[in-house]
């Protein structure tokens, strides 16, 4: 017999095998998930979940697909959280300090409680990346926030009403588009292709019989 534990899904008790994830436990209990389930692999942030172990004061947050059940776990899913997403035109905005002030002024109301960092399901230093955004240091904000899956748990815990994942996304786009160095070899290659530089070579390949293509493929030089 498998090792069983008691979990309380939205307060209702179910007995489930202890080796399951929270998501697996919900399915074992009979839920057919529509919301609160996405990639099942820790990348999409659909399964943000809040739980408390009975008798403990600490409220914990996690991704249901990445966390094993524990005995006496009280689970509440957070399948949607109303993050504030501002509309902007990437071609018109610039990576200045003012842009955050215009779009996400609430970041300056941060009281430094660090609840966002404590709640982050990815273990990121959320308050720190907000501090970088406040200063207009978008490169640092982008790096610090890079692994964000936008589950929204940080924002659910924020007394200042900050939509941290959206702030970070803007910072990353500004960094990727305007601040990161340009790739000359990429621009050169796009130009060459537009000029038809490889046209003849490619058409030659496309016209070759399969036997000749096999010969070329099996004997091609592979970069070390």
């Amino acid at each position, binding site marked *: 017999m498998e090792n069983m534990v008691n979990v309380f899904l939205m307060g209702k008790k179910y007995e489930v*095998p202890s*080796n399951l994830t929270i998501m*697996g436990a919900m*399915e*074992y*209990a*009979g839920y057919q*998930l*529509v*919301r609160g389930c*996405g*990639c*099942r*692999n*820790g*990348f*999409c942030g*659909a399964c943000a979940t809040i739980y408390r172990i009975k008798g403990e004061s600490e409220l914990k947050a996690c991704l249901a697909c*990445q*966390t*094993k059940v524990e005995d006496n776990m009280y689970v509440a899913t957070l399948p949607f959280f109303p993050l504030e*997403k501002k*509309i*902007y035109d*990437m071609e018109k905005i610039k990576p200045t300090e003012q842009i955050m002030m215009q779009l996400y002024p609430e970041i300056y109301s941060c009281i430094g409680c660090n609840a966002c960092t404590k709640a982050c399901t990815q*273990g990121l230093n959320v308050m720190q990346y907000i501090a970088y955004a406040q200063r207009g240091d978008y490169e640092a904000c*982008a790096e610090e926030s*890079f*692994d964000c*899956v*936008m589950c929204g748990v940080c924002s659910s815990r924020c007394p200042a009403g900050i939509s941290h994942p959206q702030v970070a*996304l803007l910072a*990353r*786009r*500004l*960094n*990727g*588009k305007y601040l*990161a*160095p340009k*790739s*000359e*070899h*990429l*621009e050169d*290659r*796009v130009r060459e*292709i537009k000029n038809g530089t*490889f046209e003849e*070579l*490619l058409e030659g*390949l*496309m016209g070759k019989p399969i036997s000749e*293509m*096999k010969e070329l*493929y099996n004997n*091609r*030089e*592979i*970069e070390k």
Partner: protein
Amino acid sequence: MYTEQMLESMKKVAANREANAALEPRRMTAEEKEALLAKFHPDYKQDEFAILSVGGNKGEKVPTELRALLEAKSRINPADIDLSKADYETDVLIIGGGGAGASAAIEADEAGAKTMIVTKLRIGDANTMMAEGGIQAADKPNDSPAIHYLDAFGGGHFAAKPELLYKLVTEAPEAIQWLNDLGVEFDKMPDGTMVTTHGGGTSRKRMHAAKDYSGAEIMRTLRDEVLNRGIPVIDFTAAVELILDENGNCAGAVLMNMETNELLIAKAKTVILATGGAGRLHYQGFPTSNHYGATADGLVLGYRAGAKLLYADTLQYHPTGAAYPEQIFGALVTEKVRSIGAKLVNSDGEVFMHPLETRDVSAASIIRECQERGKGIETSDGQGIWLDTPMIELKNGEGTIEKRIPAMLRMFGKYGIDIRKEPILIYPTLHYQNGGLDIDADCMTKVENLFAAGEVVGGIHGRNRLMGNSLLDIIVFGRDAGKAAAEKAKSVNVGKLTLAHVDAFAAECEAAGIVGDTVSPKLLPTYTHGNPKFEAK
């Protein structure tokens, strides 16, 4: 975390690590690969396939599970549907909210077409979000689109449609530039040179990445751009049938609200299917690295409406799915782990193959090592092979793993495995649908005004796909489909709407003697994890 038996084997892996790291294993010859695939690759197991008895590909073989869905009943009765009043009217209707759908939407909107996305979960809930390792483009001086073409054509067993592969490789650098201009962060050197690595079967280092969150970084940026443009996204709404007009052209879809089951009608001048793959059908009982919604819906919708399939009998089993611990069984362990130096090692601590053979060959080789040679490591779900991750830092220095593959570090770290110090166990996992809907160079299927892009398409990669060419194809063909559908919409006059094709397909099934209560598209899988209360049903 590891069992006693695993720890014993792990000692041998550690003892050989230095020697194994220095080794440059021989690549297999063409003949060796052919023999290996024929004996061990799941695509070659004839009894796992069935012959289609209806539709445009009648007489051809597809996986048994797919055949059941292609020949299943519709979720709707056309007689109950009032097509005279549309709930949505648009120029371009995009079904699917992954990378291809989002790219198509941005380009269709850019071209001035009224565009909308419907998706059965949320925008971004897609395999794109889960792509880890990278995206190919021949943009380095020692590389060219022609070399990219040869790598992909050979890796796909010389079966790709040349006109599609030509587009894939020639539009690749521009796709990277487009993403970069949208603000996608690629790994770069301080001077702006892209950090690129090998993937299985590449002859040049052309894998661009954003750490090991490459797909997530692309997807969240595309999603943000779709929202900035104000393109309507109707989420938790699945397409359950395509609608044609009296001229046989595609003209919309019957939609179903996933939460209320309400049916809705979307009328459109052109339709783009961007519904993705099929990993959640768990072909041959394999676990999958795919998204929850990867259930081959687009193949079913398109096939019933008259579109044809190409290479629907070929699937990709990613060589390195997590084999242990069981909570992440089947989850993707990116090929990038091997690109940056880890090798595959058997239970005796031996490197048994070159780590960067193409995926089909690598998967078959791992299966052989376990099944025939008995050099796998027992796990609760079967067997696994070591992927010696500590080798990465032995070769490239401390800190490499945290910097280059943070998602992998985190995924295993949650179960007490530090991949910097301990190797991990892997086994092939169902990863990608190589085949799909047959399209022309303008992304149109055999049904007029029905376009397709992304994993739902077949023919771009032939019978096996290289790492990093799918993240590329969703961008290239997503954009092209968006442009083509927007352009075509300008000249379309939609005739009277009809679902007669659904009735006709059902009649064909009945005439072919197909019985059963299965309905499709499947939309979502059902899991009960061995609960005896549900397993009996």
